[in-house]
């Protein structure tokens, strides 16, 4: 598989074309706005978190490249029904996937479909695209929620 084929896999192209959970939850309990100032990628992430800390619903909306958009689609599909603690752990594992050479089969198994974005590792300029929505959700779930975050 060429490096480009590894980046633009069918699953990514599919989520880019038909993003899941694309919109804004109203009402929502958590919110963040993620932007990449240098490239202009721009997404709002909204969450509905239950009182006992379970992500009941999540959504994202905005504009950006195929990598950032498919990452938002895959992320919101992956986190529903998970606890806040589990989502934050998943976030760490996902961000490691994008940059670390020490990713194990176990990591990939836990990440499931999210592991399809590992191809960005060979495109350092695109890591921030895949990370943007995850930085936004990290921000939305943090106690000192800042409303706009950036990955540059």
């Amino acid at each position, binding site marked *: 598989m060429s*490096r*480009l084929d590894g*980046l*633009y896999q069918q699953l990514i*192209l599919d989520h880019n074309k038909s993003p899941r959970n694309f919109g804004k939850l109203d009402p929502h309990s958590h919110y963040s706005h993620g932007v990449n100032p*240098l*490239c*202009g*990628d*721009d997404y709002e992430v909204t969450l509905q978190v239950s009182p006992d800390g379970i992500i009941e619903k999540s959504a994202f909306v905005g*504009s*950006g*490249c*195929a*990598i950032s*958009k498919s990452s938002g689609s895959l992320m919101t599909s992956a986190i529903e029904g998970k606890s806040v603690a589990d989502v934050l752990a998943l976030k760490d594992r996902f961000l490691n996937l994008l940059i670390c050479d020490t990713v194990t089969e176990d990591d990939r198994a836990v990440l499931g479909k999210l592991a399809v974005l590992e191809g960005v590792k060979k*495109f350092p*300029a*695109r890591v921030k*695209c895949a990370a943007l929505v995850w930085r936004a959700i990290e921000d939305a779930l943090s106690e000192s929620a800042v409303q706009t975050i950036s990955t540059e």
Partner: protein
Amino acid sequence: MRELFDKTQWIRDQFPVLKRKVHGHPLVYLDNGATTQKPQSVIDRVTRFLSEEYSTVHRGVYLMSQESTEFCETVRSTIARFVNARRPEEVIFTSGTTAAINLAATALGKSVVTPGGEIVITQMEHHANIVPWQQVALATGATLKIAPIMPDGSVDLEAFERTLTPKTQIVAFPHISNVLGTVNPVAQMTAMAKTVGAIVVVDGAQGIAHHPVDVQAMGCDFYCFSAHKMYGPTGVGVLVGRYDLMDQLPPVQFGGDMIETVTFEKSTFAKLPAKFEAGTPPITEIIGMGAAVEFIESIGWNYILGHDQAILNYALAGLETIPGIQLIGTAPGKSAIISFVMDGVHPHDVGTILDMEGVAVRVGHHCAQPLMGVYDVPATIRASFSVYNTESDADGLLSALQKVRHYFQ
């Protein structure tokens, strides 16, 4: 056309970097709007200065320092001639276009701009010609007004004229738009601004390598540009300003070189150009910039202008054959800066796929976010051509764009 491209090969041979491969493909360098590659003459001049002649300027009584000073002052005269300034003292060395605009804006903000005054810019500005004026408006209580452009990317001259009022103190606009390629009618716009007595600042970042510049014929008060977009080194640029005006303006940066006498109680300031050149200047880069001007003059404006239009038309004709491409900026007489978007594909994805084919373009908002808003696009792909680009470079772009459709139908 044939003859033009034969000369291009002679020019290409002077740029060693153009021989390199990127991801296994010959480099197709089409990001000249961001920065240009360097010819051997500039590389050699900088190398010789650093290895045989290096010394500081304006300070030493020793021979080498006197030589360095002479080299730099000769470049000042060369640049004054290159842009037809009235005298060499009208050439102020800065770190680049952004620093030149900031210098002009800060000095004018401290002296000319008043509460209730108006500063006029256009919708096509680079951030470097927006943000400094926003800051001046904030600091002074002046208002920043935006003159609109037409759908093709040319300034709406009637609306521009209506934006000007007796309160207008500053008018700033680009010579050539870094996104649209529009070549603005600088002399005409300046004449309009002068009817209300405004000071005119021209952002020449894209203009300087693509069009002959005659600041006296343009009539502008300031013209700003960088060396690195005209085949010279990074870290140096020029503010060309009208002598009688700059002589009245207050200095902006303070320190060595810009003073006349200093006591602990007070200081008096040097005359132009030293007044605006505090600290040790980028000596090596200035000397490299001199070689860059000589390189441009060795090619000649007839060739540069002819090649610019020939490569533009060739690339545009090719882009027409690719479905789903929308051009952003189609003003008549535009320069060879081509911005476009592709249906259903984000510019960043295009940029990555083009890079894998060895094609270097800029994707993004090009430091012109408000202009992206005018065209309602988040970003564009920009192919910007230079004197060393050939038909084969344009073909490389076109075939790489076909590859994009392999992933994004």
